[in-house]
C-alpha cells in the first residue's frame, strides 16, 4: 500500500471518526453522565441531517448548523418530557421518539427518503473554496469536524463543572441522593437530554453535508456505533478530568473507524459495519462482567474436580 493511499484511509477514518465523534460526545453526556441510554439517537441523527440538508439546499449553509442543533434539542426535549413527566420508561421513551421521528424526517425531506446536495452550497464547499491553493486544500472536512469536536469538548469541560453540570452528573450518579435533595431531577434530565441531542443533530448535519446527501437510513445503528466508540474510548481514557475523558471518547470514535476502514481493506463487506459495532458493544460490556465472574467460575471448576478425584 502506498503512503498516499494509506493517508487517504487515515483521513477518511479521521473525518468519519470526528464527525460521528460528536454523537459519541452526546452519549457521553446522556449515557455516561446522566445514565440514560437515549435510544432516540438514531432518529435524532437523521433529523439533524435532514433539517441541515433542507436548510442548506434552501441557500443558507451556515444557518443549517443552528437549525440542526435546534431540531435535535427539540427531539431531546420530547424524549425528556416523555420520561420525566408522563411516566414512560426512559428506554421506551427513546424508542417511541425514534419511531415517530422516522415519519417526521421523511416529512422534513419533502416526502422523499433521499436528498441530494451535489450542487448545494454547504459549510464544506464554503471552506473548500477558501482553502483552494493553500497547503490545507482538500482538508475542509477534517478541519470543520475538528473545530466542531474541539468546541463541544471545551463546552462539556466547562459546563459539567458548573452547578447545573454537577447537578446533572449527580442525577445520573446517585438518583437516590438526588430524589431527597434540592435538585429537581426533571429539570436536570431535561436540560441534559436537550444538550446531548443538539450535539447528535449537529453530528448528523455535518455527516450529511460532507457526504453531499441524506438518506433516511443515515442514522440507523448510530446509537450502537457511538456506544461502541464510547466504550473503546473508556478503555483508553476512562479516568481523569472531564476534558480528558471527552477526548478519550473522540479517540475511541476515530479508532473504531480506523479499525473498520482497515477491515474494509481486507475485503470485509461494508454491510458488516453494524454487526461489528454490535459485537464491540457486547464485548466491551460483557468483558468486565465475565471478568468479575471468572474467579468464582475457576473455584467451582476446581472444586468439582477435587470432589471427583
Amino acid at each position, binding site marked *: 500500500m502506498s503512503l498516499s493511499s494509506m493517508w487517504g484511509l487515515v483521513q477518511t477514518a479521521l473525518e468519519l471518526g470526528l464527525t460521528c465523534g460528536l454523537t459519541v460526545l452526546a452519549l457521553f453526556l446522556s449515557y455516561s453522565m446522566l445514565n440514560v441510554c437515549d435510544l432516540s439517537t438514531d432518529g435524532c441523527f437523521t433529523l439533524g441531517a435532514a433539517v441541515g440538508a433542507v436548510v442548506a439546499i434552501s441557500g443558507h449553509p451556515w444557518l443549517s448548523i443552528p437549525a440542526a442543533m435546534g431540531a435535535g434539542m427539540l427531539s431531546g426535549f420530547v424524549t425528556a418530557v416523555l420520561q420525566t413527566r408522563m411516566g414512560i420508561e426512559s428506554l421506551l421513551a427513546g424508542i417511541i421518539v425514534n419511531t415517530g421521528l422516522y415519519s417526521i424526517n421523511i416529512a422534513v425531506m419533502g416526502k422523499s427518503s433521499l436528498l441530494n446536495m451535489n450542487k448545494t452550497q454547504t459549510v464544506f464547499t464554503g471552506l473548500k473554496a477558501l482553502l483552494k491553493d493553500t497547503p490545507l486544500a482538500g482538508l475542509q472536512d477534517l478541519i470543520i469536524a475538528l473545530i466542531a469536536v474541539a468546541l463541544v469538548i471545551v463546552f462539556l469541560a466547562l*459546563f459539567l*463543572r*458548573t*452547578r*447545573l453540570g*454537577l*447537578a446533572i*452528573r*449527580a442525577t445520573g*450518579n*446517585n438518583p*437516590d*441522593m438526588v*430524589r*431527597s*435533595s*434540592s*435538585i*429537581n*431531577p426533571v429539570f436536570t434530565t431535561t436540560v441534559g437530554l436537550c444538550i446531548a441531542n443538539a450535539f447528535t443533530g449537529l453530528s448528523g448535519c455535518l455527516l450529511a453535508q460532507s457526504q453531499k446527501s441524506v438518506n433516511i437510513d443515515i442514522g440507523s445503528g448510530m446509537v450502537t456505533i457511538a456506544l461502541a466508540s464510547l466504550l473503546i474510548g473508556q478503555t483508553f481514557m476512562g479516568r481523569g478530568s472531564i476534558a480528558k475523558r471527552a477526548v478519550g471518547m473522540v479517540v475511541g470514535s476515530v479508532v473504531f473507524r480506523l479499525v473498520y476502514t482497515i477491515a474494509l481493506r481486507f475485503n470485509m463487506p461494508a454491510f458488516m459495519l453494524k454487526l461489528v459495532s454490535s459485537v464491540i458493544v457486547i464485548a466491551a460490556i460483557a468483558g468486565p462482567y465475565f471478568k468479575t465472574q471468572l474467579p468464582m467460575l475457576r473455584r467451582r471448576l476446581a472444586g468439582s474436580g477435587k470432589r471427583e478425584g
Partner: protein
Amino acid sequence: MLTLKNVSKTFNPGTVNEKTALTGVDLHLEPGDFVSIIGANGAGKSTLFNAIAGSFYPDTGSITLDGQDITFQPEFRRARTIGRLFQDPMRGSAPGMTIEENLALAAGGGGWLSHVSKAEKAAFRERLALLDMGLEDRMRQPVGLLSGGQRQALTLLMATMVPPKLLLLDEHTAALDPGTAEKVLALTESIVRDNKLTCMMITHNMSSALELGNRTLMMDSGRIILDLKGEARQGLTVADLLRMFKENVGKALDNDRMLLS
C-alpha cells in the same frame, strides 16, 4: 417551627396490601427542639419523616414549617430547608464525583452556570477539617473511595452546609461500626448545637434516645403514643420506657434490636 395537624397516610388503599402507615398524627416542634423518636419496626417512624420531607403527600392533614404551609410542596423544593440523613451511608452523596463537587452541590448558591470559586473551596476545606478525618486533603478524590463512616460524616456536613430549618436523621448511625457511630453521633450533636438546628432523630438505641436532645417521641401503629419532654423526661431509664410502652399499647415492645442495644 414544625406543625403537623391530623396527618394520615394509607398505602395501597382498597387492596389486600392496604397499610395504614400514619393515623391522625399531631405534632408541634419549637425552634431548637431536638426530638428523638423510638418505636418498633413498622411503627411509622420513617413514614413520618417521608411525610415531612415530601416523599409522598399525606391523605389528610397539613404540614407547616416555619409558618409556611408545605403540605403540597414538592420534595426537591422542601429539601432546601429540610436536611435529611438515611441509615444507608451510600444514599447521601454521589460516589462518582469528588468530595469537592459533592460539597459544591450541597452548598448551592450562585447561578446555575457559575463555577465553584477559590473562596468556596477554602471554606469547604475548613468545614472538612472539623470532621477530623483527613478528608480536607482528599477533596479531589471521588466519594466512592471513602468508608461508610466517612461518607455519612460527609453527608452530615452536606446536609448542614446551608443550615436547614429542620434536620431529619433516620437511624443515621445504625449501619456504622460502634466506634464510628459514636463519632458521627458526637459530630451530629456539635453541629446541631453550633447551628441551633431543630432536629428529629429516629434511633433504635433507647438509652441514646433519652440521653440526646430535649424530647422523646414513641410511635406505634402510625400514632405517636408517648411524648416525653421537660420534667417528665428527666431521670427516665430504659426500663421506664419499656413499662410505659406496655401500659400504652397493651403489649410488650418486641423489637430485639432495640432491646439488645
